[in-house]
């Protein structure tokens, strides 16, 4: 069985094979691991990987908005950490952040309390464009760059999702 994951724009491939004695072999790149499940139930794993203990919790969910499958893994040991991976898809690739500069996205879900600019306005870098509110906190959304507001997608009173586009700023020629 092949499993593909992506984290920080890097893709990984894991191949799992079942052995005759009930153990598994895992292949990642040119590396090979022998895995024994000591006790495993969905979402909770006690594994031995090449004789080293691994205790992990896992869960996964498909995003309603993007359709991307997200995998959450927590390792519970001395260096306990939480990780988030996604199953790479062509849409996931095209929707990665780092879109056109000057595109302003909501950093948090919330409600638009006020919009202080209009389409066509010229703004300075750092100028407050709108005010979002969530959990009774005000977050000022400021212009990442100087330029002209070429599109404005937020309206007062609207609820926005994290990552939703709020405005686009086109830099003005010098």
């Amino acid at each position, binding site marked *: *069985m092949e499993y593909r994951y992506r984290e920080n724009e890097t893709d990984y491939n894991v191949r799992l094979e079942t052995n005759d004695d*009930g153990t598994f072999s895992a292949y990642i790149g040119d590396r090979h691991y022998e895995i024994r499940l000591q006790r495993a139930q969905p979402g909770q794993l006690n594994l031995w990987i090449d004789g080293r203990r691994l205790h992990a919790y896992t869960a*996964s969910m498909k995003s309603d908005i993007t359709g991307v499958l997200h995998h959450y*893994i927590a390792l519970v040991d*001395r260096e306990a950490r939480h990780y988030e*991976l996604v199953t790479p898809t062509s849409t996931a690739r095209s929707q990665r952040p780092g879109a056109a500069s000057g595109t302003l996205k909501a950093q948090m879900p919330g409600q638009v309390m006020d919009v202080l600019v209009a389409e066509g306005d010229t703004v300075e870098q750092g100028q407050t464009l709108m005010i979002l509110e969530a959990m009774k906190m005000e977050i000022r959304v400021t212009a990442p760059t100087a330029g002209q507001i070429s599109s404005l997608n937020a309206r007062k009173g609207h609820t926005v999702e994290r990552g939703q586009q709020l405005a686009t700023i086109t830099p003005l020629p010098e």
Partner: protein
Amino acid sequence: MFKKILIANRGEIAARMIRACHELGIETVAVFSEADSDALHTRLADEAHLIGPATPGESYLRGDKLVEVAQRTGCEAIHPGYGFLSEAPAFARMVRDAGLVFIGPPAEAIEKMGVKTEARAIMVAAGVPIVPGFQSSTATLDDFAREADNIGYPLMVKAAGGGGGKGIRIVHQPERLTEAIESARREALHAFNDPMIFLEKYIADGRHIEVQILADMHGNVIHLFERECSIQRRHQKIIEETPSPFLSDDVRLQMGEAAVNAARAVNYVNAGTVEFIVDNQMNFYFLEMNTRLQVEHPITEMVTGTDLVNAQIRVAAGQPLHFSQDDLCQRGHAIECRVYAEDPGNHFLPATGPVLRTVEPAGPGIRVDAGVVSGDQVTIHYDPMIAKLIVLADNRADAIRKMDWALAQYVILGLTTNLQFLRDVIQHPVFVVGEATTHFVDDYLSEWEPPETSLSDHVLIAAAIGEMLKQQIAMGGRNGGCNGDQYSPWARTDRFRMGQ
């Protein structure tokens, strides 16, 4: 004693109150908004009633609806918890006028302490030191600017009706004052329905230390020592501990006495907290009194061996305090970490979404007060706190070690949380030696990012095995159902075995 209590709150504190009631054999009635129809508190209470839409102003802040549900369901008392209506004198009065008991102080005491400006005046009269500042309901922006120059910068703009870090601005330069006042007013109006603000000198390197008090209807007022809450982000506490690693025994006693005096000055009854800011010379100044249960009350319970919610209910039922000042001492050291759905690597912006799975740490001296467990949602409507993790150990060093272990064991899948950030705080050398002030996060961790590590193959293997097991469940297994459990991935007769 009461037979039935309405729990006028949500989240972890509602769960905490319901538990205390059930221990006392008291039935509970929960209320919920449309966004909370399946929330934890609605599942724990004996009854749960819908009171309105998600917006707090149309549900949890609707005192009339709460009283109506309480009367309809035969409740004798209402416990407001913290936040929402806990410090609204009008609500306390409304409850009393309806012939019900408000589990908290008298409306008059809330009123006096609730307006921060009035509270400052009462403290001066009671001989409790206050932070230099300026307050006036008629002052113009020019008046504020002039007074601000007298107080000196940096200073704080604070909402008179505020709390919970809302409506607070620190101003470093005069040019920023007007903007800060307007923004604080807007936030205060929205959060507390009261745009009044006041100015207060900003005490650099201050420590936030508060004293828990408890008073009954028979004139007994006692304090349950201090809590140090200096670790804050966005003016909200994230880590609290007791005893304070900073205070001397002398000052600890003086602060306890000052807190008792403050409570007596307003004829206080029930649990309350007197907050002080303590400068690096160990001078302490009254900040405000929180006329309600505090979020961080469990650390006091841990070191004093008390149950404050239990005590609140008994006091409200008219019983005298069942312990005296002499019965109390601080045994060991307790720390609380507030676990939030938020991104500490990105200005602590709140995260929302479903919580796919939580696994809470457990063991001697470990307590988890959670409001969100596996399958629950964190929504944009309410505070993104998931749980409070509290530990008790013999001494501070052991408490830090225990907290680190407990944080490492805490699993929360599906959301970004501050678990790793909290571990980094309690392991930070400045925190470890007990020298963190309210600046700590800004000074040492403002550029915090999750530890940069390359993804280990172990993580990928765990992900793949986890996904494989999930797929096998989805398929029901090739011979699923043969042992009566068609959902078990182990009900298979092929080579796939476990427990070798």
